[in-house]
């Protein structure tokens, strides 16, 4: 019955069996977890962001949820590039392309990490310039400006032939300007978006913010309309493909994001809402909807809401 529907996409010449991608920072700590996510149907998987040196990140609590989404300030805990290079080997055994996420404080850090990971068989490099809650990185390091974006992207372009995905913040009114700077510097896709805010949740009985870093990035349902709007705006502004991320946990959400203009979609908080099998579930729901609505090729819905 549904044999005519295909979800496969070609993202910057990376063939994906379907457009769902594990977002960075969710379950991407180990090779084995990436493998498991791929087995659960993700079209591609992203590792948790890696810096030059190991980082313990913020103290707990680092991840909580609220009625409308999730709040996190993990603080980019990661084992550093050397340990990461040891962890992420034999990626060809993983049944989906693996995307490396690379962070840094100065632009040279980005290229150092990219070079440090060059032996591993990553399919693309994602650079988030947009974390709202880690001193020294992302927005708190001024990386969310057109100039910084251009400089960092150019630096990464210098050292790798892999596709580069630049991940942007939904906070910044000039998201299109920044995306264009990334495009001009040779980025191959834009990942939109990172967590928004930051936000704060106070436990009134403790009279204290819950997160140890006090503030954190908001993700999940709360973020979805903002992310969809960012993708809609970007679709008009840039030529390179967009990976839409933010609040996706159902097939309908995924289709909405693609209709706004995303060529593929990321899932993070959705792993909490529907379990690790969220990728399979979303793909099943997308296939079902496409079947019922006479679409055979997922490509045909990309940007359709602009028509």
């Amino acid at each position: 019955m549904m044999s005519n529907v295909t979800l496969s996409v070609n993202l910057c010449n990376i063939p994906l069996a379907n457009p769902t991608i594990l977002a960075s920072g969710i379950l991407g700590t180990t090779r084995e977890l990436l493998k498991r996510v791929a087995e659960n149907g993700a079209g591609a998987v992203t590792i948790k962001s890696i810096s030059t040196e190991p980082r313990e990140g913020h103290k707990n609590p680092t991840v909580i949820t609220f009625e409308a989404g999730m709040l996190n300030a993990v603080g980019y805990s990661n084992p550093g590039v050397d340990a990461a290079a040891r962890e992420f080997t034999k990626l060809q055994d993983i049944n989906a392309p693996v995307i490396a996420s690379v962070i840094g404080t100065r632009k040279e850090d980005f290229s150092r990490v990219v070079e440090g990971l060059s032996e591993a068989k990553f399919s693309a490099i994602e650079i988030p310039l947009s974390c709202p809650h880690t001193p020294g990185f992302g927005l708190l390091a001024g990386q969310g400006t057109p100039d910084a974006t251009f400089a960092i992207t150019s630096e990464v372009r210098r050292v790798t032939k892999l596709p580069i995905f630049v991940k942007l913040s939904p906070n910044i009114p000039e998201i299109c300007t920044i995306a264009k700077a990334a495009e001009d510097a040779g980025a191959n896709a834009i990942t939109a978006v990172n967590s928004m805010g930051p936000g704060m949740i106070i436990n009134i009985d403790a009279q204290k913010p819950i997160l140890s870093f006090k503030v954190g990035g908001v993700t999940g349902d709360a973020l979805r309309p903002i992310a969809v709007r960012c993708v809609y705006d970007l679709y008009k502004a840039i030529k390179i493909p967009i990976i839409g991320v933010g609040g996706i946990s159902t097939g309908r959400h995924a289709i909405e994001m693609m209709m706004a203009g995303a060529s593929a979609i990321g899932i993070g908080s959705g792993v909490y809402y529907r379990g690790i099998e969220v990728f399979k579930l979303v793909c099943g729901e997308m296939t079902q909807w496409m079947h019922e609505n006479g679409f055979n090729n997922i490509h045909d819905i990309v940007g359709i809401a602009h028509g």
Partner: protein
Amino acid sequence: MVEQPTMVKICDILEESPGVKTFFFQNNLPFVPGQFIMVWIPTLDEKPFTISYIQKDIAAISVLKRGEFTHALHKKRTGDLMGIRGPYGRGFDLQTGLNPCIVGGGIGMASLATVIDSLPDVTIVQGARSASEIIYQKRFPMMKLCTDDGSIGFKGTTVDLLKELLKTQTFDKVYTCGPERMMYKVVELCKNHEIDCAVSLDRYMKCGFGVCGQCDCSGQRVCIEGPVFTSAELSRMEDFGKITILKTGERAILYKH
């Protein structure tokens, strides 16, 4: 439900041993033996602890004083607040009608205590370094004890004692919690005797609900798929008994960190 700490009042504190205190609090969460909660001390930190007592409207955690966080917890008094969220994880699959053995090492007894409460006629082995570290002696008077220094009970490890017991009797199932190297040996021993084990693992945790990936053990999330795993599952988990994951996410050889 939201994954946020709720402040509960500590309504009673029990000194189980010089190093271990049990903190009782009122609540009506649906705990299953082996499940854990994340305990929050505002502005300090948040860590996982097994529920060690499940009573009507009251539950408790038993805490070994170890580092900064457990020191701070040990300073709490009756009436003080602490934050809790949970219950989290997959607890023990309790099969009645079997002839089980409980093997607890040190504070690992905390997660086995509610198993003992739930099953009739269990054999209990508790091991510690010395007599002063033994806990729950009044609670479970029938325990078979062992200590490294022989200051009470059998002189030797829980593995040694279990080996002794298996010479004269047999068990259908072994529930174990304690240092991972000990549990690894228990599982090996039981494999030779074709006894199924249920093993509660300890990994550093952040979210507790399966998104951060911090608690990975060979692709299994200890916070969700665990903390309790069966022998069969563990046989597919290469890291068991060998590798843990540090706060940074780096792999580390167990007991070297």
